């Protein structure tokens, strides 16, 4: 398994193209099988590295045998292991959800695998330009995924997403160019070792690099005021793609922030206000996202705004930058990926059965779909942060970290955020339990929903409960990641 790090990226990438070839193989559901294999195989490779990484070691891999300053190199450490693990896990569940839906054909699975391989590349690479390349791979795959059903609104949303994200990557590329010009290397560790000297001689340029990256990653993760692409893209995408966007792609922005900011600016800049900046932007994101979700009537948009609000919690934790804060933040990244993917699946089923996008039309849904409604209730309690579900544990860590930091303003806003979250989710839940019955539009016929869709929502609900009751398992995974960030 000496080549495991590269195989984790390359196997889904190859599988992405292999799905197209299944047309020529005489194989029933060939694309699905290839997709599942393309996710399970990297999981196995990842597990093979698990023991070494969790003991605190770093598995390094030089591409083509070229060492660091010349070649690209990959590394699996605690942080990338944690992210890769839940990306693959949620990716697998997204495939499970898609299994039952016949419209999702080869092209869909191919793009899904491409997106996953992009995410894994971002997570594993230690070369900053390589990271940019993987960001673009991910972006291209996700543009096309959003428009998969070729509806006009989806294409408009995807175009908006395209322009805004590309503007982010232009800024990121600019930052990379500046760093390359200053240091002469694209290797992250190489840049990190020189950045303190540059900061001493020319602090302005470091501020510029930081701001450029902050905006780029802020756009990717949906930080206020750069969140504007999220609601449209999330709500217009096909359901599993919404899950992918909200559960994984937003988190990639946070990952880049954690990886690059802590590595590059950990010593110098982070102490001088950058952390505070992220924290306060996080608080604004949290409140604005929750406030907008409160008045949002479209279910998927509501969930998208809720994602923005939860990203606010994570940003607060990242901004605190303490041991406990990062524990809460990383845990919340994991939890939110589980919860929000599950919620989008529930929403997808409900929308495909009722034919309505708006919450106010979904009256009495629970009578037709008790199972999905139950999952929705469990998942929304989890996202509000109600014990014994997983969201509670991570929010408690974040709350405790802000208390430890004596930042009572942040405590107040976190408090308000939890209540607002409760308000908008219970508004949805009470509509589901309303005594009236929804009426289909006359021209609407509900599509059949298979067992796989239901199964995936139940799995997510069950995972939320299990992680909430046994948070220790995930905390053990997070500890090595924190050791990477705060050595």
């Amino acid at each position, binding site marked *: 398994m000496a080549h495991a790090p590269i195989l984790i990226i390359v196997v889904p990438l190859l599988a992405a193209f292999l799905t197209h070839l299944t047309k020529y193989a005489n194989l029933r559901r060939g694309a699905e099988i290839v997709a599942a294999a393309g996710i399970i195989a990297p999981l196995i490779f990842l597990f093979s590295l698990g023991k070494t990484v969790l003991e605190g070691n770093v598995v390094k891999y030089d591409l083509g045998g070229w060492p660091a300053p010349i070649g690209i190199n990959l590394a699996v450490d605690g942080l990338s292991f944690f992210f890769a693990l839940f990306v693959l896990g949620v990716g697998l569940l997204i495939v499970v959800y898609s299994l039952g839906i016949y419209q999702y054909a080869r092209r869909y699975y191919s793009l899904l695998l491409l997106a996953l391989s992009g995410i894994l590349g971002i997570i594993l690479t230690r070369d900053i330009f390589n990271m940019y390349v993987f960001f673009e791979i991910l972006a291209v795959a996700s543009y096309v995924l959003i428009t998969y059903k070729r509806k006009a609104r989806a294409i408009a949303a995807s175009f908006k997403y395209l322009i805004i994200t590309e503007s982010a990557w232009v800024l990121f590329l600019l930052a990379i160019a500046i760093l390359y010009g200053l240091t002469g290397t694209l290797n992250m560790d190489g840049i990190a070792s020189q950045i303190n000297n540059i900061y001493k001689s020319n602090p302005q340029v470091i*501020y510029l690099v930081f701001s450029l990256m902050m905006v780029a990653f802020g756009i990717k993760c949906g930080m206020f*005021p750069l969140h*504007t692409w999220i609601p449209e893209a999330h709500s217009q995408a096909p359901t599993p793609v919404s899950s992918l966007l909200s559960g994984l792609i937003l988190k990639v922005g946070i990952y880049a922030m954690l990886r690059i900011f802590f590595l590059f600016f950990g010593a110098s800049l982070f102490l001088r206000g950058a952390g505070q900046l992220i924290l306060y932007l996080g608080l604004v994101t949290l409140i604005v996202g929750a406030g*907008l979700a409160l008045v949002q009537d479209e279910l998927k948009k509501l969930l998208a705004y809720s994602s923005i609000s939860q990203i606010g919690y994570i940003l607060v934790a990242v901004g605190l930058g303490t041991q406990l804060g990062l524990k809460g933040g990383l845990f919340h990244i994991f939890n939110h990926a589980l919860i929000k993917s599950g919620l989008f699946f529930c929403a997808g089923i409900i929308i495909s059965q009722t034919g309505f996008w708006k919450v106010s039309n979904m009256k009495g849904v629970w009578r037709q779909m008790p199972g999905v409604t139950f999952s929705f209730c469990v998942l929304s309690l989890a996202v509000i942060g109600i*014990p014994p579900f997983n969201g509670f544990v991570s929010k*408690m860590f974040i709350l405790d970290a802000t208390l430890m930091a004596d930042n009572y303003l942040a*405590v107040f806003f976190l408090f308000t955020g939890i*209540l607002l979250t409760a308000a908008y989710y*219970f508004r949805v839940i009470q509509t589901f339990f309303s005594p009236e019955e929804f009426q289909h539009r006359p021209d609407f016929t509900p599509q059949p929903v298979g067992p796989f869709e239901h199964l995936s929502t139940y799995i997510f609900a069950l995972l939320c409960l299990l992680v909430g009751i046994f948070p220790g398992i995930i905390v053990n995974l997070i500890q090595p990641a924190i050791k990477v960030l705060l050595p």
Partner: protein
Amino acid sequence: MIFNTPFLPVDNLSRFMLLIVAFLFPLIFIYSFSYVKRNLFRYYFVLFIALGGMLGVVLARDLLSFYVFLEVMTVGIYFLIIDNAKKESFPAGFKYVLMMFAGGIFILLATLLLYNLTGTFEIAEIAKAAKMLPGPSIAPIFALFAIGCLLEIGAVPFHIWLPDAHPIAPSPISALLSGIAIKVGAYAIIRMLFTLDILSPALVWIGAISMLFGVLLALKQTNVKRLLAYHSISQMGYVLLGIGIGSGIGIGGALFHILNHAVFKMLLFLCMGAIIYVTGERELNKLGGLAKRMPVTLLTFGVAALAIAGLPPFNGFASKAMISGAAAGNLWLKLVVIITAAGTFASFVKLFRFSFLGSLPVKLKDVGEAPALMLFPMLVLAAACFGLGLYASPLLSGLIAPAAGRVIEFNFWSAKLFLDAFWIVFLGAGIYILGMKTDFFGATEINFGLDWVCCNAAKLLERGCAGLKKLQARMLNAHLFWVFVALILILIVIR
């Protein structure tokens, strides 16, 4: 960090609360068999979740488990409140769940702050450590904790969820809410009794205000269950008063009143539930003349009404006598106790008069007694009202004094207490006659203002958010504009 010190060993206080839950819950189940007709699976599912939450709450030895089970209970009860699925159920449930979550977060904040200070979640250890810490550093923490508990109790000024949630829930659930759920906050305060040095005066006055306010509004209500809900506020005022005074008799009286109020208030809700079940009416002016039709309900209701008014030999008498004995030192508090008791008496005379006496409305010609499965829990509770009153002295020494952890001496059968009871009847009759003459009882709902303020604040918030939504950029140019504005702003801020 989480769930490593859950339960056990059970102490006397937990055992006392456990006894209440274990005794009352089966009665609610029995009552529900007849009362609940729809969505049985959902109803019993959430009822069991609520039961689990309550058991967890009273058994928890550390604050974090307490909080966890509190929220489990809240969620269970929310789904029970909306079980009727009437139009009003949802706003009431919404208010309930949000205020309970708010209370929960207050408790969680206090828990975390105490953990940061003392390094433990265990209540006993915190109590030990709290003695070492200086007062000013822990006073705000205890205040946070107390606010959380008061929200759970529904004490004034945190009561606005209570008169909405109680009436709209199915009757067994109203009984559950009033009998057990709101006691949890009081239990938590008693559990954290070492905080009392700091909280005592506030608790006394919040208790007194709740007593007066609850009974005043109860007198005005015409919805039978809303009337009972306001009495819950008032009766929990007694409990808070007893805890706030903090002497042995005060705490003992508060614990005893927790038990007694659970018994007689549940009985009252079940009686009213029986009436609603057979007549379908909740408004007093549409009821009347049920005495002959529902003799068993009449009997049990009479017992409960006498108990809540604090008349001997029923159980309310014993605990109220203790609390008023504890308050004897302060003339104002004594006055509050007497007025509240008289008002309670008057309002139950009114409830009795308008539901059981008078002429039977034409619509209710065919009503009969409630089913046996509903009557059985009512009779059991009525017997308990009687028994708990008669055996107050052995109960005090055998159950309540150990639960309070103190030696408590109290003579229940003194002439002075009977004189008090006489005064209550006398004054109460006076208030009733006065109220009937001045048309005070049937008057339209008055707004205390707080509910109005909260609802309007919520509306204002929603309008603000709607405004924010309008501000959201929709054009692509505007999005890109924001990107560059953000870039420049971050650059300026970070320098």
